């Protein structure tokens, strides 16, 4: 019977936390639906709009060019995620199934790479992009994302692959299957759940990237959503409602994906870091 009051206590505390946690989002939400007149008169970002308007979203989408930035980001993110998953599944396969000299060293390099400060890469990657003509192209950003994310993805997929019983691998080998057949016909179907978790995580990260688009892109037509949002902040300085609408637009894709595939997202984060 002592369980019930304890339950209520937990409930009350958790509710309090969640309410506080949601305040910033409510602030953005209310601001996005307000008219400029109301913002100027009251200047309360947190009050419920007296008149709700969707005009701000239209302005951000069309005049603020979020439309364009969306397409760019969608392109960059999907190509990067697919290519990263493919390449890192190859390296994860090699590292988890074969014993070779540099195995541990390569694994360490991949894991360490995902933890280094980005500032260690900024200048050379920028220079490299300029000299190869990749600067200010979406392709240049994509190639960087693929290369950089290979580290985490290899580590992640490898953690799954090593749990597959060796006997499966040996049996296939005795049956005369070559390495690529084992990779594509046996291992990849088995790690599908891991690939799903990883793609959700990677999609969110790459969609939300800011620094690399900032460094590697310049023209307005190439901007990604995050860069576009900061451009919006510069252009529409005091039109907080338009900026708020832009911020919500920038957030809508990763938030939707997160809410639908939350389980994978969380699994991805825990398996990627806690379990070795």
């Amino acid at each position, binding site marked *: 019977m002592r369980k019930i009051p304890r339950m209520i206590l937990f409930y009350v505390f*958790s509710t309090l936390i969640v309410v506080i946690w949601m305040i910033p989002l409510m602030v953005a939400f209310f601001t996005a639906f307000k008219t400029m007149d109301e913002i100027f008169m009251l200047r309360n970002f947190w009050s419920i709009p007296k008149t709700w308007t969707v005009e701000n979203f239209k302005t951000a989408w069309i005049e603020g060019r979020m439309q364009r930035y969306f397409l760019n980001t969608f392109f960059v993110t999907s190509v990067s995620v697919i290519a990263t998953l493919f390449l890192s599944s190859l390296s994860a396969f090699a590292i988890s199934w074969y014993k070779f000299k540099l195995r541990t060293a390569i694994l360490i390099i991949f894991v360490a790479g995902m*933890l*280094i400060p980005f*500032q260690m*890469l900024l*200048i050379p990657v920028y220079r490299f992009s300029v000299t190869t003509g990749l600067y200010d192209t979406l392709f240049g950003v994509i190639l960087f994302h693929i290369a950089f994310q290979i580290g985490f993805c*290899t580590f992640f997929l490898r953690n799954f692959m090593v749990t597959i019983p060796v006997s499966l691998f040996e049996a296939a080998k005795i049956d005369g299957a070559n390495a690529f057949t084992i990779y594509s016909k046996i291992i990849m179907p088995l790690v599908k759940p891991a690939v799903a978790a990883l793609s959700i995580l990677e999609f969110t990260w790459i969609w939300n990237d800011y620094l690399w688009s900032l460094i590697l892109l310049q023209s307005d037509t190439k901007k990604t959503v995050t860069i576009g949002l900061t451009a919006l902040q510069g252009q529409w300085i005091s039109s907080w409602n338009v900026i708020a609408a832009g911020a919500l637009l920038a957030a809508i894709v990763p938030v939707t994906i997160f809410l639908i595939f939350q389980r994978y997202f969380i699994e991805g984060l825990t398996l990627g870091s806690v379990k070795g």
Partner: protein
Amino acid sequence: MKKNKLTPYLFLIAPLCMYSIWVIYPIFQTFVVSFTKWDGMTKMRFIGLENFKRLINDNYFGLSLLNNIKWMIGFVLLSIPLGLIFALLMDQKFPGHKIYKSLVYLPMALSFVVIGQIWSWVLEPTGGIVNAFLKSIGLEQFAKPWLSDPKIVTYSLIAAALWRQIPYAMILFLAGLKNVSKELVEAAIVDGANSTQRFWYVILPALKPAMVIAITVNIIDSLRAFDVVFVMTRGGPFYSSSVMANYMYVQAFHNYRMGYGASIAVVQFGITLGFIIMYLLNVLKKEERD
């Protein structure tokens, strides 16, 4: 079976090539650039340790480093205990706990650009909710210009970043709580341990691996802080909220001092390296157990 020795390398060629071009080689290049005077366009000039010597006397760099330390302390002291409390609360199966968890996790789906923008409204001096709240409970004297007062701006930025960092710690702890043996908890109950004793003697020791990872991840993240600062204050007012990553960016890409910028990155990397090794050791230790 010579062919077999080659197989893993065949699989590794493409991923390793890309990784080398965009990650490994640049790390070495940054080291080289850090020993030069270079504006990014004209010829590089080798100047030895000159940049690093200058860093020692550079007050703005000192300020940035100090701010990074504040970030580190803030992250560890707040996101670890709060993440743990959140995890312990939401691990209870009360009705709706799944929705609760989703809402707490939600900031992790947002980019720092969006987070920074949202928080600048929360902290806005006249229309922001923080000051409005302080006013409404009669603590008006504590209302502040959170983002323009040099003394507090860094703490405001840390608060915004914690909105995303605490749920992350919570995820790590929730995963850790799954490893707490139910039998051990029940045995403790049979032995008459109260909930505080159970927490200190059963649950907390079982959470140790998750704790170590959460602390190292938080420290590494605090040393990499960039986006929130860049979006909310650009390091200002007058460098008061600058962190190493921002100072590096400003020096290399605004002032065109690529060599000096590289030396800042190298110092930042050097400090982070110890914690990266700690992380690696923890991961590798688990490898051996498998």
